[in-house]
């Protein structure tokens, strides 16, 4: 196939996000014979560090250096990519908060197709890309197909693909900074307000007792806290608990919450939406306890127990004491 594959590389403070390596895998799956180009925007030493790291994974790297790109502003980066990418390019972007911001509009400007939040792909055949998406909060999956003859932007779900091992891809870093063009935009980044730290930093904990909707009532959280105390663990939660204001945001595990890397993770009354599991990194031992035997969490857990957490957790606590 003639079109070129590009992967937009998200990074923070000189370190590429995990998703950067996952995109390489996805690119390989879609176009096994093509050489994917990593596209890195930013400025200064951080940018250089990321480009070097990506050169070990991608056969080609574009370095786009500009002061205006020091913080990834999707409005600016969209117009920059539009100028730099060739026609009919296939661009992979992680489906994170930046990707959600950037890609839909970019696909329109590129007059290309857009597939959001892809979890599986197949090799492109006859300019057609087949992929798998999820709908209805992950309840069902769907096979989709899209012509990429005119180019495409594909957002890839973080964590859905294995990260490509860093080898020596011998990637050439090409400096594209001169072709950046106009970096003005009608949206200006001001600052990032950090989430309140809260009393506990769950990202540093080894063992987490995590609660979801199954806890049913704010007063029942005590049951989880008792268990956490008996285990020497800490209580964390999924988004609905924070939305209901039963626990602080700092306790939320998920893509819009904290990313945690515990050794052991008890998912209590959590259905297992990808946004929640997206905050769970490393390879923890996951124990899922849920009333519903069909809960998606049982797919990713190591051990599963079908039970009502309001009954089970106190039993577990008692046995430990």
């Amino acid at each position, binding site marked *: 196939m003639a079109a070129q594959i590009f992967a937009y590389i998200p990074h923070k403070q000189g370190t590429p996000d995990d998703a950067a390596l996952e995109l390489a895998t996805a690119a390989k799956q879609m176009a096994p014979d093509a050489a994917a180009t990593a596209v890195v925007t930013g400025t200064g030493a951080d940018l250089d560090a990321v480009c070097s790291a990506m050169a070990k994974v991608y056969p080609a790297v574009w370095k786009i250096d500009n002061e205006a790109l020091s913080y990834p502003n999707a409005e600016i980066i969209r117009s920059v990519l539009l100028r730099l990418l060739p026609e009919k390019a296939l661009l992979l972007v992680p489906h994170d908060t930046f990707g959600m911001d950037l890609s839909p509009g970019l696909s329109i400007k590129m007059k290309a197709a857009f597939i959001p939040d892809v979890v599986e792909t197949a090799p492109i055949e006859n300019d057609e890309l087949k992929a798998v998406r999820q709908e209805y909060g992950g309840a069902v999956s769907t096979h989709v197909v899209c012509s990429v003859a005119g180019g495409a932007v594909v957002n890839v779900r973080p964590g859905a693909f294995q990260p490509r091992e860093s080898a020596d891809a011998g990637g050439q870093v090409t400096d594209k900074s001169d072709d950046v063009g106009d970096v003005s935009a009608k949206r200006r980044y001001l600052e990032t307000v950090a989430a309140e730290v809260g009393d506990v930093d769950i990202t540093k904990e080894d063992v987490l007792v995590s609660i979801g909707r199954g806890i049913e*009532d*704010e*007063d029942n959280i*005590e*049951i989880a806290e008792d268990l956490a105390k008996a285990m020497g663990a800490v209580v964390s939660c999924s988004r609905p608990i924070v939305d*209901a204001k039963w626990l602080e945001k700092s306790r939320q595990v998920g893509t819009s919450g904290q990313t945690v890397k515990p050794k052991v993770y008890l998912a209590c009354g959590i259905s297992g939406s990808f946004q929640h599991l997206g905050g769970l990194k490393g390879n923890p031992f996951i124990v899922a306890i849920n009333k519903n035997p069909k809960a998606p969490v049982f797919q990713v857990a190591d051990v599963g127990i079908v*039970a*009502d957490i*309001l*009954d*089970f957790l*106190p039993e577990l606590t008692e046995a430990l004491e």
Partner: protein
Amino acid sequence: METALISPASATFWGIPTIIFSFLIPICGVAVFTYIIALRLAPLIRATPDARLNHYGARLLNLMKIWLLQYRHPRYMLAGVLHIALFAGFLTLGVRSISMVLLGISENFVFPGFGGILGDVYHVVKDYAATLVLLACIAAGIRRGVFKPERYAVPPRYGRDHTGEALFVLGLISTLMVTEGLFDASAAAAQLQQGAGGAYPAPASLAWFFTVAMRHASLETLQPLHLAAYYLHDLTFFFFLCFLPLGKHFHVITSIFNVFFMRLDRGNIKPVRHGVGDDRLDALESFGVKKLEDFTWKHILDFYTCADCGRCSDNCPANTVKRPLSPRFITIKGRDLTYKNYPLYPYGATFRKSEPLIGTIYEEDEIWSCTTCGACEQECPLGIEYIDKIVDLRRGMVEEGAVPQSLQKPLGALEKRGNPWGKMEKKRADWVKTLPETEPVKILDKKNRADTLYFVDSISSYDDRMQSIARATALLLKAAGVDFGILGKAEKDSGHEVRRFGEEMLFQDLKDRNTAAIAASGAGRIITADPHAFNALKHDYKDIPPVEHISQFLARAVKSGALSMTSLAEDREKVYTYHDPCYLGRHNDVYDDPRAVLDAVPGLKRVEMARCRDRSFCCGGGGLMLFYEPEEEQRMGVLRVEMADQAGANIIVTACPFCLVNIEDAIKVAGLEGKMAAIDLAELVEAHLNGSKQQREVEYGNSGLC
């Protein structure tokens, strides 16, 4: 009766005939009083209508019982007795008070009919009455001023303490008694000095003591004392009269009306607007109470009538767990706003424009915190109503969209799926599948008919734990040989809390659909195990067959022998107590039937909690209240479980699925698992039945991990 002293009608003061004052004081007093009353009537006239001019017989009976005989007062014994003394004294002294005023104008005035023997008897009685009143005032004053009982306290958020006002009025009343006594005593003393006999007031009465003290005082002392006592009495009397409508003592005047017009029915909720039928609700401009004049005239009269006694708040479970609700202050704040908006001073001032109540005198959470348990209304000695006001305020908030997020989901689910959990309609009758195959339950439709309809309602249909109540009820009905069926997926939530949380139109929708389903079923009577459904079907629904609660059915069945129970081994260590659900007990007077059922179980030991029957303490609320997230220091259920513990019980029996949910939860939260358990009446009876089908299904206190 000739007096040795010059009466006020004939005296002069510095050359001015004092009779002028005898006219002036009453005339001014009455004029001011009339003005104040007119201004107090103004908001009543501008308020919304209320349908109270009916059932005069029943109203008269209420008046006799609650107003005249002060039936509710002894629920707080000391305060009750003191008040009965004051009230009885006041009524008795009514004739004397009028006579006193007129004696200043016509010195020989005798009240019509009180000429002969009646007058003599009255003359003695009134002296004792006045003495009793004074003693009661002193006792009350010491109680208020020195001992300061808890329920009179005013939390800082509600303003200044009210003790000053209370003591002031006690002072005024005491002044009236003392001056009246001095007036008589001074005349009697003078008469005695002149050798006239029979002048002594009733022995050992206040006036008698005064007379003895003044026996030998000179006429130069007695005469001015006589006049001063008279005019001080007159002034105090009219001052007091005008002071009454300014504060909590307005109840002296309004109580007779408020009790006469008090609520007759229990368990029901006032219509959105009296006089507007359900079918014409859509045409109404506005629902509920948003500003002061949206209340009915009776509700504003309630505000006037509050005596600030605090009995309502003292019994309010929400107040006890420190939710931001105190019924007493709902009324006091309403009263103060009414006074403020219809100012007395300056004369002719325009009425203030009414502002929304929520956000000014009331807070949203304050109004959502009420579980509608009815303890406040049960307690109030003046017939003040609360539930209708709370519901009306909620109707107003619902219309403005100000519904807490925690309630919006279940309301949406009720609208879409007919139950607050949003579970599918077609699964409503799935619980029957959990019964043994030998015990099928009929789902009523064109082909399957039965005379009795078992209305299950949402929680017993869908909740894993509460389905056991539905199963037990079904098995009991079968065992008693009743031909019954359920509506299945045609049944919608009864809408009981939907209405009480102010979503009237959604309630109407649920009611219409259920009514049609009930009619289509062809049933001639309805039984339910859910007191909320029971109350809704009985009081909120119209034109449906008669409905009763399972405990009533069981009481009859157990008495007639249709159901017989045996004792169980484990009962030996159990001490049972019965918790009266609000909507079975207080709202519907069903107290004895459940107890009769329990007492019919051989070998069952039962104790009563201190708060039982109409003083039962709400478990925390049912229906939508399960979803609301209140601000509170404790759970009501936890307090209730502790009450059971204090009564020496280790099993709490209740006859309501919501009570069971709340109490079972509370047992866990209170850390009493294994030491205390809860069970439903139907479950208990079924487990004790001779030949029980589900003998060991209910493990006491275990909600079943199956």
